[in-house]
């Protein structure tokens, strides 16, 4: 079957801007793990579709604001993360929990704002939800309840899995040259591992593509029924895109010298499993545990432009039973190992991106890719304005 998504969706700036407005702006987006925000005045900054965002710990509460001082549009926090009050270094303005300025030096003598003017000086604030140890924000002025995007059960699973995360995390950013959609498509394609990761990941986990007959039947029903036009139906289908849990058995039980030092993740049945875990919160997040719950990777795929995606990668072990001296060495070594697999994926997606042009053929999907085909059907209806989120 041919995908409904045209090549323009991967290369066209105007399309990218419609994605921002129709898909990303209404949806909840991952912003950071709570580990980066657990101290008073801890903050993270990210740029989402050109919008500078700061999430700041304000006296124990997390708040999301546009990271722009209302005075002269200077970014308030300059680093990607850190611990610093919400204070603009340009003219010394500082801001409180609601985003209003709490101190404007020399306000009465040189600014002389009227009360009406001062009312407008708030930082723009965004909705924020904490799911276990994961922080999500929503850029819409009327955000949909986060349960409507992911489903309450899925959120509970994400929360319980993330509670296993340790508080020490290593992170880095990859500047990848491909469209963000290639990542979610790749992550939902179990057939690539045996080729792309033949010498790495596939040696440890033999991912097998399967034809999901239920998905296939759903796809056929969707195609027969025509366009999705009803928002409730669109949200129900959207919720089915975020999947997760045990994915494939490991070839060998995981053994590493540091494993006894951490509290291995127990799945919802209360048991350990020698399996590869994959959680895929739609649209642009991936959580994995390649060793049955001894450690976790979070990937956050931030669209930058049609052909560029910023991939922020976090890696942490399961909770340490007690601090140990070499924990940083464990994180560093494992991140370097994970880098090989990640670069294999990045290389193939960058190769794909290079082939795309306006007259390129649509991709041809096999029946094992029905999950991607369903997403494509839904996505095209959204982009064509058949429904709004």
């Amino acid at each position, binding site marked *: 079957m041919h995908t409904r998504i045209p090549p323009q969706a991967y290369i066209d700036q105007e399309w990218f801007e419609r994605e921002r407005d129709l898909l990303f702006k209404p949806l909840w987006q991952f912003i950071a793990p709570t*580990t980066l925000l657990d101290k008073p005045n801890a903050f993270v900054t990210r740029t989402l579709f050109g919008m500078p965002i700061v999430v700041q710990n304000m006296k124990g509460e997390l708040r999301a604001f546009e990271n722009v001082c209302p005075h002269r549009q200077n970014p308030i926090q300059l680093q990607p993360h850190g611990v610093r009050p919400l204070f603009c270094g340009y003219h010394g303005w500082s801001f409180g929990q609601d985003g209003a300025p709490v101190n404007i030096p020399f306000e009465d003598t040189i600014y002389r704002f009227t009360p009406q003017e001062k009312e407008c000086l708030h930082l723009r604030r965004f909705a924020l939800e904490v799911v276990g140890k994961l922080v999500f924000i929503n850029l819409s002025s009327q955000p949909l309840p986060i349960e409507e995007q992911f489903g309450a059960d899925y959120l509970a699973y994400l929360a319980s899995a993330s509670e296993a995360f340790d508080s020490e995390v290593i992170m880095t950013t990859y500047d990848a040259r491909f469209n963000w959609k290639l990542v979610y498509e790749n992550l939902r394609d179990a057939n690539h591992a045996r080729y792309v990761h033949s010498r790495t990941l596939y040696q440890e986990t033999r991912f097998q593509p399967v034809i999901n007959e239920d998905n296939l039947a759903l796809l056929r029903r969707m195609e027969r029924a025509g366009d999705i036009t009803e928002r409730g139906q669109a949200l129900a289908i959207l919720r089915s895109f975020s999947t997760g849990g045990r994915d494939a058995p490991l070839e060998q039980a995981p053994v590493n010298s540091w494993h006894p030092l951490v509290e291995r993740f127990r799945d919802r049945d209360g048991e350990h499993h020698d399996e590869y875990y994959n959680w895929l919160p739609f649209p642009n997040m991936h959580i994995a545990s390649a060793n049955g719950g001894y450690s976790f990777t979070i990937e956050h795929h931030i669209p930058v432009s049609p052909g560029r995606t910023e991939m922020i990668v976090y890696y942490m072990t399961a909770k340490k039973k007690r601090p140990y001296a070499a924990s940083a060495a464990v994180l560093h070594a494992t991140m370097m190992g994970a880098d090989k697999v990640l670069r294999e994926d990045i290389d193939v997606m960058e190769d794909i991106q290079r082939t795309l042009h306006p007259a390129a053929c649509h991709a041809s999907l096999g029946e094992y890719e029905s999950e991607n085909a369903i997403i494509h059907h839904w996505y095209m209806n959204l982009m064509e304005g058949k429904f709004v989120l």
Partner: protein
Amino acid sequence: MSCKFVVGSGPALDWAMGAWREAAPELELVPLAMTSIADAAEVEALLAGRELAGATAFVTFDALHLNFARLERMGAFRMHGLRMPPLVCRGAIVSDSAKIAENSYVGPGAIVGQGCKVGYNSVIGAGARIGHGSSIGNSCWIEDGVVVGRAVRIGAHVTLGGGVVVANDIEIGKLCVVDKPGRVDADIAAKTFIQSSHANPMVIVGD
């Protein structure tokens, strides 16, 4: 004749034997080839039946696991009460006022300036220069030819790779890797990894 156990694996062991032979020809050198990083049973087996009184040891290993692998080996032998004097190779210039701690190594042609402190289990590679008043923490690895300026403070378990130049008065926190050739002009926070393999640094947050 004093006995020194020289502990290592493969070419690194051969190299350490040669370096000690040049630096201290009066010593009786006993090579101990290890297969594990620091398996206690293997260490016991290597030392079984040997006279330890008055003996010394030197342990070599690369910078694996932020130099913790070498530290584990060192610890395994130190636990047997063996002293581990540093190895200062022939051709190294070490100021009389510099202090080099146990199981550290200063390679041929390296210069360690006045008042410098080099912690235990650290490596100052051949031809490296450590400016006066600088301190190198425990279990560091300073690659051949690296230049460390004056009054630089380098924390424990730091690796500086080839081609790195650290400006004067800089502080590099513990558990860092700088393995991208170039000049370090600003302090580097602990647990930061700047490597040629990655366009952006890796950093560890939290504990």
